[in-house]
């Protein structure tokens, strides 16, 4: 069997992705939407660079924002230095990449000495250290206010000035496409494969001639490079970089993106980055309880879909190919409304709770939900919401119980295609 890197299906997938990236800002052309798309593109690169460590090499990092943040700061300083012209802005994210890579070369040497829990702890420690430095050296990190610049002062390649957000989007999309392709290509090289081997069994890797420490280190350095490029894009996109880009919260978000998307699949973090960016900006714009929902969502994924969204999709696709998907559809259609009812109950409870906290002392108790105005101080509203949630959960349990039998049968049929049903 041959393994073409550029099979027809794969080429179509890449071209399709590229086409979508080109067309998206034409469809969603509002300023808000284009900003959202920009943030997505940046996060896709960042989350994929993170998964080079977690999914591919088995390194759970709690400090990946360091490489992203340093890339952002260095790019911003570079922008301010070349501001008078000369170096094209288009290539400026490379400065971020170089910074991330340099940080990987220096810090990675310490962090990748060990794998497992030790690596996780050292990465956390280094992350805190660098975050502390960002407040100690205001000359470089700009203190509380951060460092800002103006991307339009320079000239881009082909005379593009990146004055508009849409032009900026295409810069991000271009870099993101190149980075995603490069990171994918890396998974198809000897180093990429040995990273998987080191993840699975570092000891055995040693006995086939590889130094697992060196494999981890190289992956760290390359991952730092891509994280730095993502940081550079952030700097150009927002024209301001604050200490928040390299703190533990940013490290946490990228972990969640990769995990929710699915660390076992190359494309998992892409899904995670896009989904969570949408949630962050879209839901975050509607409700103050966004982080609460995010936490709940993450818990749900860890408990019920630890392989992430990518693994859910992959199972559905395999069921579809094996012609086992259609019989499950009625079950899905029953579970879905039940889940929505539960979700409505949760949302009502959370929003009333947040509403009460927010309006404490004002005498106001009204919470506005999808056009409804609910009195959050009334016992009846709480009882109603709780009843909604309880009913929803019971319905989920009942409908899922009916689906589960079929689901398990379908899965075992998938695993033993020749076996008796």
């Amino acid at each position, binding site marked *: 069997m*041959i393994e073409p890197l550029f099979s027809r299906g794969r080429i179509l997938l890449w071209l399709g992705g590229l086409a979508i990236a080109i067309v998206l800002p034409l469809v969603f052309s509002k300023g808000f939407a284009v900003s959202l798309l920009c943030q997505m593109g940046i996060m896709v690169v960042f989350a994929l660079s993170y998964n080079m460590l977690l999914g591919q090499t088995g390194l759970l990092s709690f400090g990946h924002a360091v490489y992203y943040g340093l890339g952002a700061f260095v790019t911003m300083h570079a922008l301010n230095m070349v501001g008078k012209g000369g170096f094209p802005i288009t290539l400026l994210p490379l400065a971020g990449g170089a910074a991330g890579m340099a940080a990987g070369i220096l810090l990675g040497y310490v962090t990748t000495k060990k794998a497992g829990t030790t690596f996780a702890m050292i990465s956390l420690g280094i992350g805190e250290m660098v975050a502390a430095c960002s407040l100690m050296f205001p000359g470089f990190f700009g203190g509380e206010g951060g460092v800002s610049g103006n991307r339009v002062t320079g000239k881009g390649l082909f005379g593009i000035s990146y004055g508009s957000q849409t032009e900026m989007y295409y810069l991000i999309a271009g870099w993101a496409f190149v980075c995603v392709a490069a990171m994918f290509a*890396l998974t198809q090289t*000897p180093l990429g494969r*040995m990273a*998987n081997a080191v993840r699975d069994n570092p000891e055995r890797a*040693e*006995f*086939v*001639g590889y130094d697992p420490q060196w494999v981890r280190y190289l992956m760290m350095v390359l991952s730092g490079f891509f994280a730095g490029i993502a940081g550079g894009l952030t700097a150009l996109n927002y024209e301001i970089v604050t200490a928040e880009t390299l703190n533990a919260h940013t490290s946490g978000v990228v972990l969640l993106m990769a995990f929710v998307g699915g660390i076992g699949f190359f494309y998992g973090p892409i899904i995670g980055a896009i989904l969570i960016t949408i949630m962050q900006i879209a839901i975050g714009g509607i409700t103050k309880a966004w982080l609460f929902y995010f936490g709940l969502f993450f818990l749900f994924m860890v408990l019920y879909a630890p392989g992430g969204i990518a693994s859910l999709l992959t199972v559905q696709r395999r069921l579809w190919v094996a012609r086992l998907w259609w019989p499950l559809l009625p079950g899905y259609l029953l579970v879905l409304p039940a889940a929505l009812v539960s979700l409505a109950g949760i949302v009502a409870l959370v929003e009333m709770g947040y509403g009460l906290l927010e309006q404490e002392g004002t005498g106001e108790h009204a919470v506005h939900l999808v056009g409804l105005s609910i009195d959050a101080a009334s016992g009846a509203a709480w009882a109603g919401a709780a009843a909604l949630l309880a009913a929803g959960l019971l319905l989920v349990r009942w409908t899922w119980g009916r689906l589960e039998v079929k689901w398990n049968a379908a899965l075992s049929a998938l695993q033993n295609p020749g076996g008796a049903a």
Partner: protein
Amino acid sequence: MSGVALRLQGVQKSFGKSAIIRGVDLEVPVGERHAIIGPNGAGKSTLFNLISARFPVSTGRIELKGHDVTGLKPFEINRRGLSRSFQITNLFHNLSVFENLRCAVLWSLGYRYSFWHRLAGLRDVRRQAEQVMEELGLAKRRDTPAGILSYAEQRALEIGITIAGGADVILLDEPTAGMSNTETEDAVALIRRVTEGKTLMMVEHDMGVVFGLADRISVLVYGQIIATGTPAEIRANAEVQEAYLGTAHAGDDGDE
């Protein structure tokens, strides 16, 4: 290359106060099939771990093909042509059979840490991995993750990873442990085939396998080699009879 493949001089190993290997001297000529036998807890696996540098020796010297390799790292020793298998299966469990073997040949073909070669384009790597896969009889399981293979298949893959890189000194730690009679026969045939022309050192409990396969046998008892010789010599050795062979049929599956 003729001469000595492996030479151990005064090798000792202690864990804390307990001495496990208490002075082992051994020479294995190039091309020999050498078996290490001994009762449970004699230190057979520890001896393998010292030779392959999984553990550092406490004192003593180990030479591989005439070069001192004492104190080197496992991957350095592997790069000098020594490869080992493990008593407890030690695979890349999430990777497919083919990927396991591919990982095992990459270094030996000179691709090192390359991130500029495309794996799929490396014909020599593919050919060698596929050839080993055929030899193991695992071609049907090419894309199956190693972690869900049957036990006998995992044991075969364990040997496959060990020999795939073309090392000329092979250490096998209980290759037939836990196998049925038929499986053992297959495994012995496999070992015979794939170690043709190579130096083989093996720890084995199955006396049928040992006496059928080995050119020479060393008997390790309580951290020391009490006898080395041809199967006939070992069978006739009174000390060995007393220390080991007489009780060998009492049933011994595990090792230290």
